[in-house]
């Protein structure tokens, strides 16, 4: 810059080396900047921020106030099972629990593949929860004294509205060894009506009735006062207005007009609020009046006298501060007269009118305004009190003479009725207390002292209301409300052959306000206990799934793990340890309270930290190697299979599988082994040797099937029930064939052709209602085989290149088997079909193996290969051995049983079918949602593709379907499915409502999904199709690999929106009589104990809906941000 005079004016080089690098201004970074930018950016922003925070504060404070002080959370806590699964058979509950744990495992696995960072955060949350549930209940019980429990005693009926309650003479309660039960007469609580009205918490019905009566009285006093105010205020207001006008007129002459006007307005206001001092004064008055009234004898005459006295008094009233003695006396008399119940309202009104007239009648004294107004005020208050007193009932304390008479109490043994402790509790504060020697039932006897009449309220410690949970018709479980630690099964103690009364929870106890300690004691331990029971196993299983997922990824893909000395053992140990924690946890839970108290808490916390530590450290222990990417791919694929199978598992676990017996599972195991063997044969033998083994395997398998089928004839009374089992077998077979080779590029042409053949056979078999393989061969079955052969040959000739060698063998074998099976005498149609599917699965596995031969050669000497492939010879040998054993054992097992006659009865089902009419609660919601999504998504996809099809018939069928369904409300569809379908076809009446509702929801949702997907398809560029065609992809391949992935990615938000609305729409099924979680909510608020507890119930239901909806929407956002979506986000 120094040589600036030579500088070229058109171009300059600025020496920016001299400019130092400075940090940005403090207010431009960090929190201040964020606050300024986001909350206080502009005046409008500031206003909105402040208003919003005020609103939020108000709402939050209001909510917590309600939640802590008013809400009755037992509505939720006691009905948890109902909310979750309604009346689902309790013997099958474990199946649902297993489903939930499976989902937890898959969730953990998903975290391992997709959300490791998120999991770390969630671990902390889970950890906090763990510590909380383990520590807090004990902490609360240790630090906050259990509230007193109030029990009535005595022999006078307590009247509450229409019901009369006599205090229980005996009361059964549960107590724990070491606890102290103490009883005394409540005195502070009955000192006045206000305290009595606050009597809430755990008390018996009679005590509640007393509290209610006190509350009712207070309410009525308030109401009567308001009535008086309404009556009198008009008169007074007029009088005062008049005076104000006068005053203004008077003060116009002065300069101080405005000030005096304000003074008057102030006086005006005073009339409507009585100060504490004047109330106290009135109370004192009342007491004296009471005393005077008691002495009156002739009410009629007294009324007359009093009325005239009042007239006189009013006439004599001066502008002084106090009423004259005559007026006072007259009023006393009047009150007494009125108390006899005559002409109350008339007289009251007259009194007021008199007074008002008097006020209005003295307008001249405007300049003495202050003196005038004071007596009016005072008198009004007095009269108000009189009025209230005349119209409200007597004090509850006075009626029942509470706190006046001593009571006789005793604690007895529940069985022998022997008195363990007892005595008199009375005015002097005598206390009866007893240390409980052992857990169990006790009986409290309480009554008035013999020969006397009286009522008293006992303040008890150590006696709590009891919840009775009916487990079955014969068995009940009894739990104290304040803690869940002590559970007693069996029945109540008996007194005189009847169940002893217990103090059961009633909703009225929560009508009053609660303070925070009470809330903590009553609800928190119970709530946390439920969390512990429900969520903790879930959390730990998630952690286990995660660790397992990481371990699997490493086992599959990491060379370093195998190369190091003991790392595989480490991996396995790491993978298994959370399982051990889980098992230990359940063991502790079942440990009969052995781990209650400090050791239990310490152990639980240690388990929690161990799990968390494991999750945190697992990445470090299992170091990621270079080949990690491949392992990620494998674990992701496993995961997709897992989640794909999950809905079926969930449904099958809930509904059960008919005909699934031990023998069936054994047979399936044999089939699976066979499939694996076929795969390895395909993998390891070229040409002829492999085919010979294949043929041998086929024949052995057929032989086994033959033997089993002879036996099966005896016990497949219901062949349909075994359908699922066989279909699973076929799916597993195909999946196995594909396992590990999916990355090799999908199904090759030959496998496709086999699949084609198999589906020809199967579909023709299924759709042709002929006895496919009947006794001694059937012409129609032969026809089917012929058709299958023709179709197959047609396909072979019309298609292009073909590896004839292995296909010939396999096809030949299949057809041969088929024909041969016709000579059997003991097979039914269904089992033939499944047998063929099974054999075809084996053939497919063989083909896959053969196809992968190239890789095998490479792997044989490769230490880095996945475990199964590294030693194919050994693996195959082991498989063959296992298969032969199963092959030999199963038939002999079955035959052996038959010989013993055990098979004459149908075999024991492992997963018997559940009654779908009992499905309900969250479980039904989830079933409908997941199955609804699972079914409607593929249907929607096909509808969308169909709507774009060039085949006019297909296209318009889809259009008509979509438009029709979209034009009808879901509720109509549900009504049709549930109510009208059985009318149309009576045979469908046997289908459960849940299934029909599911079909309705699926139909409905599919139409909307179709439109969403179509939108995605339409958004795609034509060039994509052309490019796909140009590189030789077929139409279906183009759709599958190019169009659908893009289209679906584009409409993820819309799809998930549809899923979420399906989830929420399941609540509509309660209209057709199914009790999913909303339906349950309606049932809960109809329970007598929790009548109209709508806030708590529906808040809970709303939270459940929200949690699952949010999870769905979160997952959708995550999915959007993967793959090319992540690349796009990065770019932006």
């Amino acid at each position, binding site marked *: 810059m120094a040589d600036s005079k030579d500088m070229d004016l058109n171009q300059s080089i600025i020496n920016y080396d001299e400019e130092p690098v400075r940090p940005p201004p403090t207010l431009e970074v960090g929190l201040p900047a964020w606050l300024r930018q986001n909350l206080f950016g502009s005046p409008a922003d500031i206003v909105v921020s402040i208003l919003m925070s005020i609103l939020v504060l108000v709402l939050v404070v209001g909510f917590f106030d309600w939640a802590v002080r008013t809400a009755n959370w037992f509505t939720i806590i006691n009905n948890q099972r109902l909310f979750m699964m309604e009346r689902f058979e309790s013997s099958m509950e474990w199946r649902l629990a297993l489903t939930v744990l499976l989902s937890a495992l898959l969730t953990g696995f998903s975290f391992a593949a997709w959300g490791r960072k998120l999991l770390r955060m969630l671990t902390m949350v889970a950890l906090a929860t763990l510590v909380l549930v383990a520590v807090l209940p004990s902490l609360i019980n240790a630090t906050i004294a259990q509230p007193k429990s109030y029990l009535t005693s005595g022999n006078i009926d307590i009247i509450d509205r229409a019901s009369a309650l006599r205090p229980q003479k005996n009361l059964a309660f549960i107590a724990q060894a070491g606890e102290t039960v103490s009883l005394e007469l409540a005195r502070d609580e009955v000192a006045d009506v206000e305290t009595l009205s606050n009597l809430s918490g755990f008390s018996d019905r009679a005590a509640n009735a007393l509290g209610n009566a006190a509350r009712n009285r207070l309410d009525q006093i308030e109401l009567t006062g308001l009535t008086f105010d309404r009556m009198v205020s008009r008169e007074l207001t007029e009088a005062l207005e008049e005076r104000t006008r006068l005053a203004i007129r008077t003060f116009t002459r002065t300069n101080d007009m405005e000030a005096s006007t304000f003074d008057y307005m102030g006086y005006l206001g005073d009339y409507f609020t009585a100060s504490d001092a004047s109330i106290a004064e009135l109370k004192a008055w009342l007491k004296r009046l009471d005393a005077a009234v008691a002495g009156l004898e002739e009410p009629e005459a007294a009324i007359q006298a009093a009325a005239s006295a009042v007239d006189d008094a009013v006439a004599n009233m001066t502008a002084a501060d106090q009423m004259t003695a005559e007026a006072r006396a007259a009023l006393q008399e009047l009150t007494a007269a009125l108390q006899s119940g005559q002409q109350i309202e008339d007289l009251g009104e007259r009194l007021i009118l008199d007074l008002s007239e008097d006020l209005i009648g003295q307008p001249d004294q405007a300049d003495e305004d202050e003196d005038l107004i004071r007596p009016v005020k005072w008198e009004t208050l007095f009269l108000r009190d009189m009025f209230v007193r005349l119209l409200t009932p007597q004090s509850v304390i006075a009626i029942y003479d509470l706190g006046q008479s001593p009571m006789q109490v005793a604690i007895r043994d529940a069985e022998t009725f022997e008195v363990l402790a007892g005595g008199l509790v009375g005015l002097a504060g005598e206390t009866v207390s007893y240390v409980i020697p052992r857990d169990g039932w006790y009986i409290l006897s309480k009554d008035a002292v013999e020969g006397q009449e009286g009522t008293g309220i006992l303040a008890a410690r150590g006696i709590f209301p009891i919840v009775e949970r009916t487990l079955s018709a014969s068995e009940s479980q009894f739990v104290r409300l304040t803690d869940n630690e002590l559970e007693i099964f069996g029945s109540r103690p008996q007194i005189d052959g009847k169940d002893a009364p217990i103090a059961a929870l009633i909703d009225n106890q929560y009508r009053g306000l609660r303070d925070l300690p009470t809330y903590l004691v009553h609800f928190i331990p119970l709530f946390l206990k439920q969390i512990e029971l429900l969520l903790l196993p879930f959390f730990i299983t998630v952690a286990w799934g995660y660790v397992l997922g990481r371990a699997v990824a490493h086992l599959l893909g990491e060379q370093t793990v195998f190369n190091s000395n003991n790392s595989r053992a480490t991996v396995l140990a790491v993978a298994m340890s959370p399982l051990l924690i889980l098992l230990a946890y359940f063991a502790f839970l079942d440990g009969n309270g052995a781990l209650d108290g400090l050791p239990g808490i310490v152990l639980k916390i240690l388990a929690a930290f161990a799990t968390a530590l494991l999750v945190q450290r697992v990445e470090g222990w299992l170091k990621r190697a270079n080949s990690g990417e491949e392992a990620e791919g494998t674990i992701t694929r496993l995961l997709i299979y897992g989640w794909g199978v999950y809905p079926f598992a969930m449904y099958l676990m809930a509904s059960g599988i008919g005909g699934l017996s031990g023998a069936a599972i054994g047979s399936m195991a044999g089939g699976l082994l066979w499939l694996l063997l076929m795969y390895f044969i395909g993998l390891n033998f070229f040409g002829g040797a492999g085919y010979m083994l294949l043929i041998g395997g086929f024949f052995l398998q057929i032989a086994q099937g033959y033997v089993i089928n002879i036996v099966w004839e005896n016990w497949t009374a219901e062949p349909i029930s075994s359908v699922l089992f066989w279909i699973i077998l076929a799916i597993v077979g195909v999946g196995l064939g594909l396992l590990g080779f999916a*990355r*090799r*590029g*999908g199904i*090759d*042409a030959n496998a496709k052709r086999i699949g084609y053949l198999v589906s020809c056979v199967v579909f023709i078999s299924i759709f042709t209602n002929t006895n496919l393989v009947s006794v001694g061969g059937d012409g129609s079955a032969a026809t089917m085989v012929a058709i299958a052969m023709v179709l197959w040959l047609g396909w072979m000739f*019309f*298609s*292009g290149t073909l590896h004839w060698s292995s296909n010939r063998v396999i096809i030949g074998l299949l057809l041969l088997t088929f024909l041969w099976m016709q000579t059997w005498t003991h097979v039914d149609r269904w089992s033939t079909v499944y047998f063929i599917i099974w054999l075809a699965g084996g053939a497919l596995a063989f083909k896959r193996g053969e196809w*992968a031969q*190239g*890789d095998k050669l490479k792997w044989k000497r490769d230490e880095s290969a996945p475990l199964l492939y590294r030693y194919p010879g050994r693996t195959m040998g082991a498989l063959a051995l296992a298969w032969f054993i199963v092959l030999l054992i199963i038939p002999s097992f079955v035959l052996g049983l038959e010989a013993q006659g055990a098979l004459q009865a149908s075999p024991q089902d492992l997963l018997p079918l559940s009654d779908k009419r009992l499905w309900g609660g969250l479980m039904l919601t989830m079933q409908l949602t997941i199955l609804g999504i699972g079914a409607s998504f593929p249907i929607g996809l096909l509808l969308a593709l169909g709507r774009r099809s060039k085949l006019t018939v297909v296209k318009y069928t889809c259009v008509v379907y979509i438009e029709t369904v979209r034009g009808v409300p879901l509720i109509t569809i549900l009504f049709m499915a549930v109510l009208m379908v059985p009318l149309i076809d009576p045979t469908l009446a046997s289908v459960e409502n849940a299934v029909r509702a599911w079909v309705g929801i699926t139909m409905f949702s599919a139409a909307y999904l179709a439109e969403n997907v179509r939108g995605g398809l339409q958004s795609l*560029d034509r*060039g*994509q199709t*052309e*490019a*796909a*065609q*140009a*590189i*030789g*992809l*077929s139409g279906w*391949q183009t759709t599958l*690999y*190019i169009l659908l*992935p*893009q289209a679906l*990615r584009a409409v993820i938000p819309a799809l998930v929106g549809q899923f979420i609305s399906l989830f929420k729409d399941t609540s509509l099924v309660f209209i057709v009589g199914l009790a999913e979680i909303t339906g349950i909510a309606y049932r809960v608020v109809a329970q007598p104990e929790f009548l109209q507890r709508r806030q708590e119930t529906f808040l809970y239901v709303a939270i459940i809906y929200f949690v699952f909806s949010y999870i769905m929407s979160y997952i959708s956002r995550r999915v959007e941000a993967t*793959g*090319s979506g992540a*690349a*796009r986000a*990065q*770019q932006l």
Partner: protein
Amino acid sequence: MENGNNQMMSVDEPMIICRDMNKWFGEFHVLRNISLEVMPQEVLVIIGPSGSGKSTFIRCINRLEEHQDGQIIVDGIELSHDVQNIADIRRETGMVFQQFNLFPHLTVMDNISLAPMKVRHWARDKAEQRAMELLERVGIPEQAYKYPGQLSGGQQQRVAIARALAMEPKIMLFDEPTSALDPEMIKEVLDVMKELARTYMTMLVVTHEMGFAREVADRIIFMDMGRIVEQGPPENFFNPDIEHHPRTQEFLDQIL
């Protein structure tokens, strides 16, 4: 220039034969009596004004457009409604589009290896190995695991060429491969195409790059109004001393 004719391959059979091919879009007659033979290893450049039907013509060769009259025979297989024939021909021809048409949801690697795996049933290892070789050939191996959206236009077009080559086609069709590119990027794509021409690939190129045509083409075809107006070797075609069809002359006057 004369690179193809004295090689030892089956040069006597034409790779592509068109006989009296006609095509209509509705009532509009797009291609009129196109007759043409393309020999193996020949590089054929098709030029002409917009709307002359040149793109439609090469799109007919792999059946992205359907011709309604006449014959097209590719590598001995006649294009007809037979689905199998269409599939076979598409397996033999690669195509590069003006707008690249890469699959945005797949990585570069997957874009290239998809078709070999799905259509030729190669194992993934083999397909990816081949894809990597091709990426090296077009000069961007380091971009293999990116998504198309993260690449520049020139890189995308090179990936598109690699994708077309992955099927090991006998014929490559280029439909204005450089028209959508920034000037800076045109060269990198043309270089790849020149390199391809040197490996004796049969190529049909629709382009406006006259330099490229002059340097690489064995034969240039000028199309107008759906007809082949004129054809010849580039040294003749761009020679002002030789007499051209008036329409060709008009076109050449405008671009040269």
